[in-house]
């Protein structure tokens, strides 16, 4: 049989490709770089979930529940299984999965942390070993199951002490019992590995851990240049954001025998993060039984970025002024940004004057120091911007003209207009009674003379993800001696504080939780 010239060429090309493939296969991999442990090559998406395309809007709050079993006294009875679902079959199914995972964890040996066998010469030297400890919780119907096992090596003679933690984390859909992977939290039209790797890279480098051993993010240092997250990176969902867990599976890092995490706030994950919406539909009937009291936590729609002004730091003397301004990454309009800027503007004349006073004090009082801080920060919550201005001026030993001052403002995030306390609540809700009750519960034991009827004109307030904080300035009440005896400077009547969790107020009474 004779082959045509064209066939011979194709045959040769085929031979060449086969040889090239063989050469590639026999060439050894590069040593020491990026050898992930247990990496699964395939990106895991659970086919049980219907595909979702972005964008999706960030919800103003997340719904959390610890799914823990409490006894009649409100104490945790057992936290190795979940309870509180309406569907008891589903509950049993998930508890069986949890029990199996716990058993698997109990049978594990030393976790393959970098350097661990240099410390633990053999498992028999582990003096202390307990666990697995199970931690359970749910965010928007996603069950987080965290199972940890601990051990330590204590050599008192050599004064060498090491401990380790091995942690496995799993997520399940409380509606179906299906396992949820990192990929399932993102719409299929986004490269979530690149997206998350970018955040991790930023946060790692922001902590100066790539090349500096003084300013380390203790316990998480890059050993080799970071190449990106594992598509199946361990993760945890909190009320605040997505925690990516780094341990021996990410060999670019030295985590020092403990898993470490980097949190990416929900607001930064963009509108292709579908994790908060995919498994929770508030229009549907709750999956929880009537015994559960779910907690709603506000999700900041935008992050605060801090800037420090180093011009007030006097390095050659013991007068230190710290000036920090926190601005938002974005605003609803330039007009609102301008309004916020006016609140955040630093009173340089005032600080200059204080700096001169501080220098004079130091010159007159050797071996002392002065500390002044000026902090102006805006934070975003659904429909609201909070602005907090805190000033502090004192020295060591303490000085006569020391002061501490705080002011808070709440602005409508759309208009920039200042809000009153009543603006936080739905119509008809008796917020004044609730506020008075919270002060009563805090201070009644001290027998104080607080003018409850007229306190609201003097009351300042601010919000966070969990509730509303109130401050009544010191000049607006008459303190009892038993109360003042707790303070170092009783002649300076302290401000009074109270806090009302949203849960206590009732979510239906708070405007931030309404659409």
């Amino acid at each position: 049989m004779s082959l045509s010239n064209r066939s011979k060429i194709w045959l040769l090309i085929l031979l060449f490709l086969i040889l090239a493939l063989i050469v590639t296969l026999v060439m050894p991999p590069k040593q020491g770089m990026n050898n992930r442990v247990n990496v699964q090559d395939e990106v895991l998406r659970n086919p049980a979930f219907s595909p979702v395309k972005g964008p999706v809007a960030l919800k103003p709050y997340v719904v959390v529940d610890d799914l823990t079993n409490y006894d009649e006294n409100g104490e945790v009875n057992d936290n190795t299984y979940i309870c509180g679902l309406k569907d008891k079959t589903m509950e049993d199914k998930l508890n069986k999965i949890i029990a199996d995972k716990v058993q698997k964890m109990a049978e594990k040996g030393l976790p393959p942390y970098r350097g661990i066998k240099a410390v633990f010469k053999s498992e028999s030297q582990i003096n202390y070993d307990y666990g697995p400890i199970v931690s359970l919780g749910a965010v928007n119907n996603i069950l987080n199951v965290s199972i940890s096992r601990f051990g330590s090596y204590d050599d008192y003679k050599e004064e060498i002490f090491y401990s380790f933690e091995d942690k496995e984390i799993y997520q399940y859909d409380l509606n179906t019992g299906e396992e949820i992977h990192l990929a399932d939290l993102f719409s299929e039209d986004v490269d979530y590995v690149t997206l998350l790797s970018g955040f991790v890279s930023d946060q790692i480098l922001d902590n100066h851990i790539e090349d500096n051993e003084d300013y380390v993010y203790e316990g998480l240092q890059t050993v080799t240049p970071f190449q990106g997250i594992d598509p199946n990176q361990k993760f945890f969902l909190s009320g605040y954001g997505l925690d990516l867990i780094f341990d021996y599976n990410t060999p670019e890092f030295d985590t020092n025998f403990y898993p470490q995490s980097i949190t990416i706030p929900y607001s930064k994950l963009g509108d292709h993060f579908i994790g908060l919406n995919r498994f929770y539909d508030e229009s549907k009937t709750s999956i929880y039984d009537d015994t559960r009291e779910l907690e709603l936590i506000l999700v900041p729609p935008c992050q605060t970025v801090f800037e420090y002004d180093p011009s007030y730091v006097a390095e050659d003397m013991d007068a230190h002024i710290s000036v920090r301004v926190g601005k938002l990454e974005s605003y609803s309009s330039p007009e609102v940004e301008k309004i916020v800027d006016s609140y955040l503007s630093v009173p340089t004349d005032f600080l200059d004057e204080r700096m001169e006073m501080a220098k004079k004090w130091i010159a007159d009082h050797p071996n002392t120091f002065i500390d002044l801080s000026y902090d102006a920060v805006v934070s975003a919550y659904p429909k609201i911007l909070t602005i907090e201005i805190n000033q502090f001026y004192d020295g060591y030993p303490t000085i006569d003209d020391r002061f501490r001052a705080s002011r808070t403002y709440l602005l409508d995030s759309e208009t920039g207009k200042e809000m009153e306390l009543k603006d936080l609540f739905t119509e008809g809700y008796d917020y004044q009674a609730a506020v008075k009750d919270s002060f009563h519960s805090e201070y009644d034991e001290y027998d104080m003379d607080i003018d409850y009827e007229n306190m609201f004109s003097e009351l300042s307030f601010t919000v966070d993800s969990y509730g509303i904080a109130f401050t009544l300035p010191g000049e607006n009440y008459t303190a009892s001696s038993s109360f003042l005896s707790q303070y170092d400077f009783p002649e300076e009547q302290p401000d009074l504080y109270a806090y009302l969790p949203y849960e206590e107020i009732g979510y239906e009474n708070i405007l931030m939780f309404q659409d």
Partner: protein
Amino acid sequence: MKMKKTISLFLCFTLLFLIGGCSGKDLSQEAPTITFDQDSYPRVDGSTVTIPLSEAFYAKLTNTPAEEASLHIKHNKTHSAYVNLIEKNADIIFVTEPSEEELQLAKDNNVSLKVVPIVSEAFVFLVNKDNPVTSLLAQEVIDIYSGKITNWKEVGGDDAEIVAYQRPVNAGSQTGMLSIVMKDTPIMDAPSEMKPVGMGDLVEVVSSYDNAKYAIGYSYYYYVSNMYTREGMRLLKIDDVEPRNYTIQKKEYPFVTAYYAVLREDEPEDSNASKLLDWILSEQGQKVCEVSGYVPIQ
């Protein structure tokens, strides 16, 4: 005839490819010239950045797979490593040069240190690839960062202000910038927005097409050459020398430094630590350094 010629040429290329692919002498893959077992391997310590090196040495010399080797190497950071060496809790450490404090500690403990460079490192400068300037003199770099040169036209570029990025004061590469490049010349003050907090930020701002055509930043060669390969970024030649493994190794590139192996001076020549150092400096040891992503010293 033409077809035969084509086939011959193709066969030659195939042969060359196979020779190149298969017969190149890769010393890092050959059997080690010395070997240790887990117990005889010297007690090592060091800085974080040298962990991959240390693991590669262990893997090679104990014939252990890389992943398993990483479990046997524990570095406790630079200062602790020096303390461990001085207090005889380690036999050899892989670190940067000893500080004054560490030298004093050694002296206080009547220990002399043997400090031997094992791999080279360099300080490199990054510009946007659209910037026509491809090379600077070492003195021009110093002048830019001391604020003496402020426009690219002064160094043969466009008439545009130089956007000179720095790192925060305590960042490691800022320390390197001061000690390796600026030395006695004070560095200019930079506004906070021009002090990106992270190395990645620095690379990002310089490589961005939109706003940083006239930016300049800096980093260590190890990180830039391994971490990011952004299309928008270019490494500058300094004194007309490109930062490459061979120019850094031969110290043709001006801003070079090193990572070191440090032993106690009285370490016997036939001890395992001394044998390890000899092997690191051998052709095979240096090849292992190179395969691990570092620039060999020799």
